[in-house]
């Protein structure tokens, strides 16, 4: 079996002017203005939850589903923490991710279904059954059901179901997600997406924010890594 | 060289007295053995003299000085240990040089002293070796050398021969004796082996339970043990001890077996001693060589039963039950006796020892 060739239709945009400007903006905030906490360099979303509910963070980038998490955390708080946590929940507001010079944009999450090749599984593949499952899984109803608590249905027709209305009525701040929908940019559907998103991009950010590299270098370095990755290292 | 004086020396750990009011004087050039069973306080006494452990009471003087509060290094002593205590990472030369280095002697003087000591002890060819490359006997000689180079007032030796095998022990025994003789050194020597003490020492201090039992020349300790403990500890085989009742008849007296009923008449002198007993009982002590064995009943002989017979070559030891006690008797190897044989034992009326039945002390004529 031959190594997979780079896919010519894909171009790496991680070091284009827009991406660099975005990276520069992060550097400005973190390095120049110091308008984000020092720990933002390495904090994960989960690690922000506790400081936030403790009233130590003014703002964080989070999904509307985070609200439910905060309600949950406030419910577990005790003593003096309880009052603070309740106040935090009480005062929680969402805003849209700000608009940049070109447009407002947010990266979509999502999920993938993998159907394993016949030769890799015992018992063979029932292609009809697989297709039926995909149909079911991506139907308006089921995709709405799967995204029930926080997100948007993967199938746009899901918005037209009766449950969507019910969700918007009952789940606080869900409209924020819906409002961001037109600004969404799907991540390229390639097997390497995980590595790009979880390793190369965070490395790029850390390289720039720790000033180990300039914005230019960090972006180019990340782009080169993606190229290399797509080249089938 | 100097004398060592112990006066009312005490070492206690709470209520346990390891050394209890011990006093004795080691004359200049004397070889004194501290001897006793394990736990008797002999090693503690030595460590007190060395200053390795603090005293609880009393005084120790070395030479003219009271050394109670002096560090070991300032007491002008050298010590030889049971397991040689050589520094394993240092060569023989460096081991011997160590105490001199600690005294900051100049290098050439150290080298001279070490070489002299090595010559004296015949270890010159070993100087570059490490201790582990030496035999036990050689190591002990190096340890002696290390003590020797210091030219100390007193040599303290803590069971220096115990780690050697029996044959080497006998040999090193005479070497140490020779060492003492040639240097005219003052030596305090700890041993649990009474034979070592008897053979080597000018005087022996017999200790038991932290108490000094007797301090005298080996010959005197052997001939006149002050109590049953010393009597049974010194001499090999040990002095036989038989508890008996005193039957007093005015100035006369005899001893009666409480179990077997026989009576043993005493000499006038011994009768006076027996009559001095505090509770009407005595312990009769007799060395194996003073006893005579008869195969038939004989006048003045008391009955017994042979327990074991131990031939050693030029002499045969018989162990005989007499009035419930085991009595050692040395015999000519030609005497043929067998275990369980009924025999009669005759005591030497002049060379028997009498101890008080209660205090166990040697009885004096009243």
């Amino acid at each position, binding site marked *: *079996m031959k190594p997979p060739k780079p896919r010519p239709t894909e171009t790496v945009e991680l070091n284009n002017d827009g991406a660099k400007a975005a990276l520069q903006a992060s550097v400005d905030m973190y390095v120049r203005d110091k308008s984000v906490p020092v720990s933002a360099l390495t904090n994960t979303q989960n690690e922000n939850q506790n400081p936030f509910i403790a009233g130590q963070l003014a703002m964080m980038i989070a999904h509307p589903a985070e609200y439910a998490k905060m309600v949950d955390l406030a419910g577990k708080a005790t003593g003096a923490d309880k009052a603070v946590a309740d106040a935090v929940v009480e005062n929680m507001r969402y805003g849209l991710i700000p608009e940049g010079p070109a447009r407002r944009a947010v990266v979509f999450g999502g999920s993938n279904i993998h159907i394993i090749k016949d030769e890799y599984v015992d018992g063979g593949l029932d292609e009809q059954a697989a297709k039926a499952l995909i149909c079911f899984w991506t139907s308006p109803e089921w995709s709405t059901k799967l995204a029930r608590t926080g997100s948007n249905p993967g199938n746009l027709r899901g918005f037209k179901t009766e449950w969507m209305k019910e969700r918007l009525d009952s789940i606080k701040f869900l409209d924020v997600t819906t409002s961001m929908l037109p600004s969404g940019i799907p991540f390229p559907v390639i097997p390497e997406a995980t590595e790009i998103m979880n390793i190369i991009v965070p490395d790029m950010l850390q390289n720039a924010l720790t000033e*180990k590299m300039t914005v230019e270098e960090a972006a180019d370095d990340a782009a080169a890594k993606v190229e290399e990755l797509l080249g089938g290292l | 060289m100097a004398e060592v004086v112990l006066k009312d020396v005490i070492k206690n750990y709470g209520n346990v007295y390891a050394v209890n009011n011990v006093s004795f004087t080691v004359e200049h050039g004397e070889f004194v053995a501290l001897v006793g069973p394990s736990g008797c306080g002999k090693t503690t006494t030595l460590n007190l003299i060395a200053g390795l452990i603090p005293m609880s009471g009393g005084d120790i003087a070395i030479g003219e000085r009271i050394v109670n509060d002096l560090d070991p290094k300032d007491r002008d002593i050298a010590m030889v240990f049971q397991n040689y205590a050589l520094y394993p990472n240092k060569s023989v030369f460096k081991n011997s040089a160590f105490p001199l280095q600690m005294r900051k002697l100049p290098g050439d003087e150290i080298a001279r002293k070490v070489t002299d000591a090595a010559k004296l002890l015949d270890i010159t060819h070993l100087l570059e070796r490490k201790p582990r490359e030496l035999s036990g006997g050689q190591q002990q000689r190096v340890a002696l050398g290390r003590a020797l180079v210091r030219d100390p007032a007193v040599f303290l030796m803590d069971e220096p021969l115990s780690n050697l095998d029996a044959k080497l022990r006998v040999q090193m025994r005479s070497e140490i004796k020779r060492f003492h003789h040639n240097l005219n050194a003052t030596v305090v020597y700890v041993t649990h082996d009474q034979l070592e003490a008897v053979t080597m020492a000018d005087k022996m201090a017999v200790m038991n339970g932290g108490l000094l039992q007797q301090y005298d020349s080996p010959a005197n300790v052997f001939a006149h043990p002050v109590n049953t403990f010393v009597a049974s500890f010194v001499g090999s085989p040990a002095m036989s001890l038989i508890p008996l009742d005193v039957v007093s008849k005015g100035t006369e007296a005899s001893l009666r077996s409480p179990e077997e009923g026989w009576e043993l008449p005493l000499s006038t002198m011994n009768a006076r001693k027996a009559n001095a007993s505090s509770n009407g009982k005595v312990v009769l002590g007799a060395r194996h060589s003073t006893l005579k064995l008869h195969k038939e009943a004989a006048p003045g002989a008391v009955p017994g039963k042979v327990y074991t017979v131990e031939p050693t070559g030029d002499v045969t030891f018989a162990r005989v039950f007499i009035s419930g006690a085991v009595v050692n008797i040395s015999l000519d190897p030609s005497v043929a006796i067998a275990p369980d044989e009924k025999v009669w034992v005759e005591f030497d009326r002049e060379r028997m020892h009498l101890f008080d039945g209660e205090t166990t002390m040697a009885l004096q004529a009243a």
Partner: protein
Amino acid sequence: MSILTGQETVALSPAARPGRVSLWRRIINHRTDYLYVLPALLVMVIVIAYPIYYTIELSFFKTPANLQMRDKIFVGLDNYGTILSSASFREVTINTLIWTFFSTLFAFLLGSAAALALHREFMGRGVMRAVLLIPYVVSAVAASYVWKWLYHSDFGVIGALAVQLGITDQPINFLDNTTSVLPSLIVVNVWKEFSFAMVMLMAGLQTVPEQLLRAAQVDGASPRQRFWHVTFPHLRGVSMVTVLLLMVANFNSFIIPWIMTGGGPAGASDIWITQIYNIAFGRQRYGVASAYAVILFIVMMVLGYFYVRALTRGDDARAE
């Protein structure tokens, strides 16, 4: 002149060797012994030997993320070339050496100091010993999380204390910073494993012969000189073993750096092991990761060789 008359002859010649027995005969003679070690041997083969073999095999293959493992591509020594020529390899290796060297050094020094301090009799010694053993018995994972929060750049206890005591204006940035992250991790690691060195050396100290110390005392050595001439040489063997074990453990340490920083930020605390883990399980590059692991394996085997030699040198000396 000799004051000693007797001459003792010492047999230092090695004991006569028994006639050579054939290997086969020796195996037969010891067949039950082999039988007893067989189960352990089998387990070893399954859980150690096979993975080692498979790692070495994988190191010659490329395993692209979009292919099944069984479709891996043979690339010869390419993976080794990739690693050795990559820019990160130098950086990670330097980090690994710094990490291992300083962790080992300070853990050993601190452990020795603690062992010597605890060797003396004093009030509360037992309690102190128990307290100092805590880091060693605490789960590394739990300790890492606790330290992560102690160090936290914004909400860490250490930073807060520093500000309150007026030492700094801002909470100290321990981990979100490429220069201080590795030293900060080393501090945690030293804290975690100095008790190991302490235990080893305490055991060693207990075997220092009392008579030797007394001899040195009589010979006029001060406490310091006694330590230098008697205790220290005596501890050399156990020190060697301790240092080697610490080095091996540090080369292989994963939990503390992985949990506290994951090798970051920007690779500043990446060491071989975290790098290998990242390449294998973060980036699914099993071939490269295996090659990396093989390099580490070779280094560890060299260390292991010295370890075994340090351990058996005493045996050889005894056997002489």
